[in-house]
């Protein structure tokens, strides 16, 4: 198990800005805007700089889970994958979604 790390321990980072003030970038921004459908928020937050190589890696931070330190007790932000299609199909068979009372019972 990877050692749990707090995200607050990390040092501050320098900003990388996508400069949209240049004339060329305005043309390209137009291209993005013209082609935007329902998406109204697209920002380039990291961009490879000229003559440099970009490397992007990941680091897993386990959500806190008291008294358990195994994958069995691993927590997820939101719905656990333990609630899968089988669980939902069983719930439909049990008629859990037919009315508020049965749904509320199922929730608990």
């Amino acid at each position, binding site marked *: 198990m990877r050692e749990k790390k707090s995200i607050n321990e990390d040092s501050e*980072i320098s900003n990388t800005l996508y400069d949209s003030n240049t004339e060329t970038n305005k043309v390209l921004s137009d291209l993005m805007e013209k082609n935007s459908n329902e998406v109204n928020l697209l920002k380039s937050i*990291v961009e*490879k700089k000229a003559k440099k190589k970009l490397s992007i890696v*990941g680091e897993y931070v386990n959500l806190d889970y008291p008294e358990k330190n195994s994958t069995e007790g691993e927590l*997820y932000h*939101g*719905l656990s994958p333990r609630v899968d299609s089988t669980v939902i199909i069983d719930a439909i068979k049990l008629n859990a979604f037919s009315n508020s009372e049965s749904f509320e019972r199922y929730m608990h």
Partner: protein
Amino acid sequence: MSGDIVQLAENSPIFSLRKIDSPICSLDQELTAKAIFAKSLICMSMKFGLKFDITGIAKEVFVFLKNSDLVLGLDYEIKTKPTKNRRKITFKYELRALGCSLHKVMPLLYTNFNVKENDCLTSKSQKTSIVEPLNMADVDIIGLTKCYYSGVMPKVLKIEKSKDNSANGNLQIYNIKFCKTTFATLDAMDNSYIKNHILLSGAINEDTTYREVLDRADIYEDKLKSMYLSGDNVSIDQVNECVKCSLNSNTCAVTCDILTIDGRHIMTRRSADVVDTGTIYPSCNGQSELLDNNVSFYKKSVYEDNPTIDTESDRRIDFSDEVKREAYAELGVEITNNSLEYLGISLLGICPTSKIDENATKCKVEKNEIPFIELRPIEEKRRFHFNIYTKSKSNDCMEEIEKKVESAVENFESDKKFGINLKIDNNASDTTNRRMSILMTAISYLDTISVLALSIVLLLVSSFTSGAGDINITIDIIATCISSITASIAILNLLRDYTKYLIKRNRCMVHYFNFSISKKKNNRNNVKKDSNISTAEMRRFCDKIEKFFKKHETKLHPVSALMMIYLLRSSEE
């Protein structure tokens, strides 16, 4: 409180949310967690439908249900079985904009109906039944989407730049810190309209309903995004602050532009069954996923469905293997680590601005707090996730890739492929070479026509010179034979090429676009040079590619537009 967890059902951790310490307002996080949990369950249930055999009156009953105000968005499909004279109905309780009400539909299915002569329906008759026998044991539950499983994905917590580049000064290194979330969570968070489901109009406690709690959560997210992410320039610090306070799943997708060996950038049009239908995506794009023992699909599906990021391992966590997996799953193309280059990271979101009533006086408004009572969030899709952009090369040409796509496991995600040939000329020599190459290719295509023309000339010459003597007659016969055979071969070759062209055109799977851009000439007076490609050239390219996709009744997804920007800028080096 940051970093703590709101967890439902302590002994069975099936739902949890990171507690947030918000600068905007205070949310009741226990209540919010419960409401999002309910919304997630309903969202998952909407992926399934019921299938059962019914008696002859069923069609009329379903038409009645569909036309009545009891059910909104009821969908069904009737498949006739002529041999048994019975109809099989696929009944989808799929919620549309307002959703069909399971609350009302399910009891109806369990009720016996009697159809009178005037087509009026009365319920609770023991004489006639819609479904015989209407027993869940006889009802099949079917999936309504081509592929559905709740995969495990990274929820981005922070993006940080590595300050230590002492090992190699030519590197920019970024680290993405993440925890785990799931597709079911993302799906519920993205689809705001689910909160209109009748079951969520019920009371979550004595004071409020599920719907109201979900409204508040939506308003909170919208406010958060408009506070941190509006404006032209957004710093990573702002993004980090935003994700720190966000309830959303904030997943991280991977995107790759693949250049074929014949110099084509592959682009694809999204098919009808997937998100962003009809728009143009880069070569491959998909959510990165994390290996997890709780997802049974990972254990039994094909290799390309198995995530490559193993959070249990102490080894490097790399997104490049996810890119490779996605490229193989969508296109059947194998790319190598050495050919893969990172181009950047973007965030992508649908961020509706909640209508705020400035004159609201009915509720007490705390400092920096939204007057919840007066607000009604716009019912739109919501989205907030990240994208890692890469480019790579394939050893296959476009035609070979076209064949490989046919056996790719996720080939249903796109219905058209495009080969974009984008040439950037660094100088006049490049331009001349490129034009010469085009000329030589054209000549090579013309060789068959040249042979045919020469054969005809030879035939004409031999016909003019015939009859001058015995030897000449023999020579004429031989010359005529050779000319005729050569001409026939040339005609057959032309016919073959034309047939090939027709077959290719009818298959219509790949469409080609060619464009060349010339870089600016060196100009010593150009003090502030922001790009080596002139604005006019950029605009010409943008206009032409837009027209090309418009002709194909589609347009670039913003992710593709940004990919092109990255490609153009990286090609300037």
